[in-house]
């Protein structure tokens, strides 16, 4: 595997192998000496055109634990303001020795362009492109579900419900593709204006109401972050209505089964898509997701840069 751009690049087997590898690496993260020499002498660049401290730090720590050299290139501050093209920036970074470029970009398809247009020969890892995909997020979510649902090597039989702003969510897109690839049954629910046409074709059953979807007793409820900066442009959006219909509030929390897993890609808007109680509930896997993010990103970096799986 040279790049990771989309879940569509993975087969069920290669996805499971990545999860296995991440599982093994997560044990490294528990040990006192937290680094492996696997990527010593290799340079990894974080090329972020959007602010995302969490994702960038997660990749940075992951790369360092594999002994890679890490450069953080804050593209917002430097090149965009000078009008430099993505192609020129990437070529510059490669000339400086980048073996892998981790890219976060506001435009859908930007990572795909870096990987496929012949601009650079470095490995490209998509850390989120527009509304398209965020594949490492889906992998860490799958790993989390696999750990908590003890469902064998894949997710056969697990029922996952994804709730919220599906239209703007790359997390939702990557998760629908990956979780269904791994055998889970994926449902989605969200306000009608935020459910994009044809999302069912990606492999998700669409519910018109949160409560209706909850009645199906999902094993996992994944709440999406409300992207307030996008919502406020929409005159019809009111926080009160959103909370009433789409928040994992106390009443809905009460409807979840004892073993139901609550997930959120972070950062959470407490009191909006997720109540304080739900965020603090023992069934919440939010911190485990963050931990698994590290392991998954280590596995992905290792896979694309060494061409092999760790196990």
């Amino acid at each position: 595997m040279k790049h990771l751009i989309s879940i569509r690049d993975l087969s069920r087997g290669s996805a499971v192998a990545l999860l296995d590898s991440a599982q093994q690496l997560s044990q490294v993260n528990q040990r006192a000496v937290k680094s492996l020499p696997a990527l010593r002498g290799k340079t990894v660049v974080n090329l972020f055109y959007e602010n995302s401290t969490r994702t960038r730090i997660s990749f940075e720590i992951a790369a360092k634990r594999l002994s890679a050299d890490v450069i953080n290139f804050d593209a917002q501050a430097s090149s965009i303001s000078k009008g430099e093209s993505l192609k020129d920036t990437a070529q510059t970074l490669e000339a400086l020795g980048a073996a892998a470029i981790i890219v976060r970009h506001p435009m859908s398809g930007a990572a795909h362009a870096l990987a496929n247009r012949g601009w650079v020969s470095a490995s490209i890892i998509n850390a989120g492109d527009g509304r398209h995909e965020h594949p490492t997020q889906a992998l860490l979510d799958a790993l989390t579900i696999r750990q908590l649902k003890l469902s064998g090597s894949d997710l056969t039989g697990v029922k996952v419900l994804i709730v919220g702003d599906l239209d703007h969510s790359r997390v939702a897109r990557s998760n629908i593709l990956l979780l269904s690839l791994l055998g889970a049954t994926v449902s989605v629910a969200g306000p009608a204006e935020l459910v994009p046409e044809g999302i069912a074709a990606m492999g998700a059953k669409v519910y018109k109401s949160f409560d209706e979807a909850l009645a199906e007793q999902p094993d996992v409820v994944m709440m999406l972050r409300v992207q307030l900066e996008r919502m406020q442009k929409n005159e019809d959006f009111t926080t009160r209505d959103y909370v009433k219909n789409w928040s994992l509030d106390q009443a809905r929390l009460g409807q979840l089964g004892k073993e139901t897993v609550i997930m959120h890609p972070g950062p959470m808007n407490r009191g909006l898509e997720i109540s304080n109680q739900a965020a603090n509930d023992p069934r919440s896997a939010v911190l485990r997701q963050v931990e698994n993010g590290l392991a998954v990103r280590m596995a992905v970096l290792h896979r694309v840069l060494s061409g092999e799986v760790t196990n």
Partner: protein
Amino acid sequence: MIILKNLTLSDGSIQDIRIDAGQIVEIGRIADSGTDCTDLIGLSGFVDPHTHLREPGFEASETVFSGSKAAAAGGYTAICAMANTEPVADNSTVIERVYDAGTEAGLCFVQPIGAVTKGLKGLELANIQDMSRSRAKVAMFSDDGMCVHDENLMRQALLEVKKFGGVVAQHAQEPSLTIGAQMNQGAVATELGLTGWPAIAEEQIIARDAQLAEETGSRLHICHLTTGGGVEVVRWAKAKGIQITAEVTPHHLLLTEDLVRTYDPVYKVNPPLRTADDNRALLAGLVDGTIDMLGTDHAPHSGEKKDCEWENAAFGMLGLESAASILHQVLIQSGAGDWALFENIISKRPAKLAGLNNHGFIKVGDQANITVFNPHERIGVAEMNQSKSNNNPYLGLEFIGRVQHTIYQGQYTMIDQLVRDQK
């Protein structure tokens, strides 16, 4: 003098044609020897109602000369050049400049299209009468690239062209429904995270303009139809007797939105590639006469406009050099139509639309504008190289059938697949 021997015409007859002093002087059996055209199809010279030449203003992408070479290579003897140049062709000065550059290039007839509104801004009518009286005798007006979306302005434009029997060619795209649109709306756009371009944005403008054409009694042409629903609207309008014509591009007949999965901007085009169902509906419309003609929407762009992220890339793709081969594939090879229909679609009807009286006929006494098509030989994309740009979406494809000779004003502009470079 040129003598074409054993040419198969669109009616199926096999004829020899003698051309002298720019005219067709004899059709029949000619004793003299000439260019052997056995098994080749002789058609009236191709006419493109929709070409972007980029001169003046964007000569790095295409000039009148390079576009004319691409036209000759594609079998075209006349092309209608859209007005979205810099400066815009919204006055007779720019119109005549393009017209003269076409005459100077001498490889095909270049008919400038006049802008409907000043600067293509959609706010105020351009001086349409003035352009119609220019040396280029403009009959077709279009803001192509932009839609004339203001109803009153569109109505005024239709009334204006009616005075001299002209036509308004509409790029049907309601702007308020396509803000930030990047590709066909639907499941693929959803998965790719690109803003969708709904079919209704096109269909609604076609319906409105058909009604305006009916009310004003004027002529309306619909550029690059892309949706099955659009075909239905035009079919309805024609049934009502409204003076409406419509064109389809080769790419909308052949390519689908699935190509956008590559995020390669070579597939980014306005209006966008649609679905295989739309391809079929467009072909059916072409076969039953709802759609009158092929328009290439040849839209050259220099490298940097395409070698970037999808959303930053320009809309448009090349078309002149591949159009006939594609029409051959979808119409003739598929068995959907015959050579007479082919000739109507690619020559006769667009010539009539743009008022090009020297084109669209193979008749003794007429100016000799003839395209000789070889339905047996292959052509690959690498051979389509006359344009200054290379945003060719057919990369990796090969077509059966290619233009063998192009004769414009009685002279070869392409002979045995080789374009003549100079006059």
